[in-house]
């Protein structure tokens, strides 16, 4: 997967966000085995301990699990993945709404604009 890590925010949070998005969007498929911690850290160009911490949090959220034999895999719980996808999409929707409001659109205009953009494809 593609990583984009900036240095002015805690790296742990950015890893968590990007891993969550990767699982929610299917970059890592349900049940797929993840690369090892160090390999993931090398790909992202970050510290292995920081990557470990992000993966542990992802596990606490039920999106990945550690299996003694298979290493770390993405959950095959479709509901958990769908819930994560919805939560992320909702966050983007709220960001859009906030930007539209900041530009002076009222909420009806914001909704109409989104509908129009969808229609245009």
């Amino acid at each position, binding site marked *: 997967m593609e990583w984009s890590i900036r*240095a*002015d925010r*805690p*790296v742990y949070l950015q890893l968590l966000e990007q891993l969550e998005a990767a699982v929610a969007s299917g970059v890592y498929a349900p049940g797929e085995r993840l690369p090892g911690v*160090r390999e993931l850290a*090398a790909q992202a*160009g*970050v*510290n*292995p301990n920081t990557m470990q911490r992000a993966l542990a949090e992802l596990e606490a959220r039920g999106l990945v699990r550690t299996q003694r034999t298979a290493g770390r895999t993405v959950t095959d719980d479709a509901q958990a993945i769908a819930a994560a996808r919805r939560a992320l999409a909702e966050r983007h929707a709220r960001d859009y709404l906030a930007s539209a409001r900041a530009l002076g659109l009222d909420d009806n205009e914001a909704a109409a604009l989104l509908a129009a953009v969808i229609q245009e494809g």
Partner: protein
Amino acid sequence: MSFLQFDNVTKYYGNRPALQNVTCGMEPGRITGLLGPNGSGKTTMLKLAAGLLQPTAGRVLIGGAAPGPETKKLTAYLPDRVSLPRNFRASDAVALFADFYADFDAAKAVEMLRSLGVEASQRIASMSKGTQEKTQLCLTMSRGAKLFLLDEPLGGVDPATRDYILSTIIRGYTEDATLVISTHIIGDVERILDDVVFIQNGTVAVADSAEHLRETRGKSVDGIFREVFACL
């Protein structure tokens, strides 16, 4: 206790102080950045840990022991300048390290050199500075050491290759090893650091975890560094 411990260390060169009362520790399984401007004392600290210099006062401990033949076996030191014989080929350097260090993995070194585009038959003298540094880094990182001391590992390497070198370091080091990287090019390195120690005029100015600094100050380590050293 830290694997590498500086305990009230002072070092004079003649009557010029290089380090004054430095106390700090580097932990196993973590990567520590030793950060400071040129001449702040970073290289002196690494040389003390490598056993190449003796402190004027205070002590340096590696796994509880003073630097000596026993700790040197556990320590992989990358000097800030290229120290390989100029008439050597890259392959001769691999053979030298294999002879010299029991923990050296020659196959790993050959593979790393290949992946960084260094020809085994190339002579050190005919390499660019960046390629010489890459060669020396590959050799150092191919040791199964407990303590890695890397003095400016990215100094002569072009920015495009830096990320690749950093991932090579991450993939390469022994699990539970203590890694110390000195640099003044902080922006490129900070994402791989657990802990940072800022050295200012031979004293410790800041010692903290990189994430804690970002959380509490809302800035990159590079940004904080510029702030700390701007008022000089």
